[in-house]
């Protein structure tokens, strides 16, 4: 049955793409095409654009990105734990308490070091 499940997922992705592209085909057939250089200019509040947007600039949330990766991996551990919890009961709780405790300490450390500040 598992294979059928993923067949549905695959079919949904393909059919979704086709259905989403259909109106674009309609636009291609219906809409006018009168391209002017002015129309293809990048919008910058009506003035002539200054340089490119693909310039170097400070991506300030890379620290958030790092912390996110740590917690996202943790979440992956929590899902299976939540499912088998009933089988193991109290012991599963104690083990996860230690794991989550360490992570909360990590979060507190990141917080204290200012990694969670948008400066």
């Amino acid at each position, binding site marked *: 049955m598992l294979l059928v499940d993923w*067949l549905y997922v695959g079919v*949904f992705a393909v059919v979704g793409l086709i*259905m989403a592209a259909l109106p674009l085909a309609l636009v291609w057939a219906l809409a006018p095409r009168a391209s002017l*250089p002015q129309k293809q200019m*990048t919008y910058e509040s009506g003035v002539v*654009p200054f340089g490119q947007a693909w310039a170097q600039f400070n991506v300030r949330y890379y620290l958030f990105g790092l*912390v996110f990766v740590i917690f996202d991996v943790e979440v992956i551990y929590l*899902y299976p734990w*939540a499912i088998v919890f009933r089988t193991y009961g109290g012991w599963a709780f104690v083990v996860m308490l230690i794991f989550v405790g360490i992570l909360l300490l990590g979060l507190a450390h990141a917080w204290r070091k200012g990694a969670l500040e*948008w400066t």
Partner: protein
Amino acid sequence: MVNWPLEILKAVGLAAGIFTFLAVVAAMFGVLLERKIGGWIQSRLGPKHVGPQGLLQTLADTIKLLQKEHIAPRAADAAVFNTAPLVVAVAGLMSWIVIPFGTLGERVLVVRDLNIGVVFFAAMSSITVLGILAGGWASNNKYALLGGLRSASQMISYELPLAMALIAVALEAGTLSTVGIVKAQEGWFGSFAFRQFPAMVIFLVAATAEVNRVPFDLPEAESELVAGYFSEYTGMRFALFQLGEYAEMFAMAAMATTLFLGGWKGPVLPPLVWFLLKMYLIVFLFMWVRWTYPRYRLDQLLNLSWKVLLPAGLVWIMITGYRMAF
């Protein structure tokens, strides 16, 4: 044995059906509903002239958008620019695979009751950010790039509290299957809206942020970033972004219904009607919030996620675990 051609036909039919449902009910009438509710809250009438009571307004808008010229900036990365709206629209559709709509006799109306339903939902809802980031970057427009980057930082930040709420519910129900979670909720007071109330609050706040709605609509903040990541999009490609956004919002509402409000369960009325009623209740809540609150600042937004919702979610998971173990 599995009858493959039949299964493929069924899948194609369901996918086309749900996509049409989303395009018509979620996007077209969702936009109309939003404008009508907005009008009602702000003591004005909202759309009124096209069709009876303005019912055909968004249909007329769609026909207009179909006739609009496709304009892409010369500086943009054409391939990425053109595929980004498709990614957002398809991601909006995919979440619906695991949503149980109701029951028909003994059968549950769900496209596929995946055994990892909840994880699948979280995964699909996080694909949207790729489309938004790609669209914002490929536009080669400063407003769009800023909107796309803001969106990326916002959506990864709120994905974690969302997952925490999902895990707390999965822990209580003992399963990741969405149908199993609905079946675990018996009666009015057995619904997880009571036993998992903090998880519901976390889920609703994080869901609002995940679908970039007010008060967390920084990626498209129209008063500072023009339109954010879709500043450069015109006509139907712009409409596809809107479709994806509304499909995602309805998916979040449907998931909140499934997880916390007991899904299709309810007395007297047919299950499908109950499901739709509950889903529209949550949709109304999203819209109510949108027309009531001002926008957050980016640092406030990140603080709320990292310093409030995330620790609260972790603590709530442990409290749920404690309650179940002892």
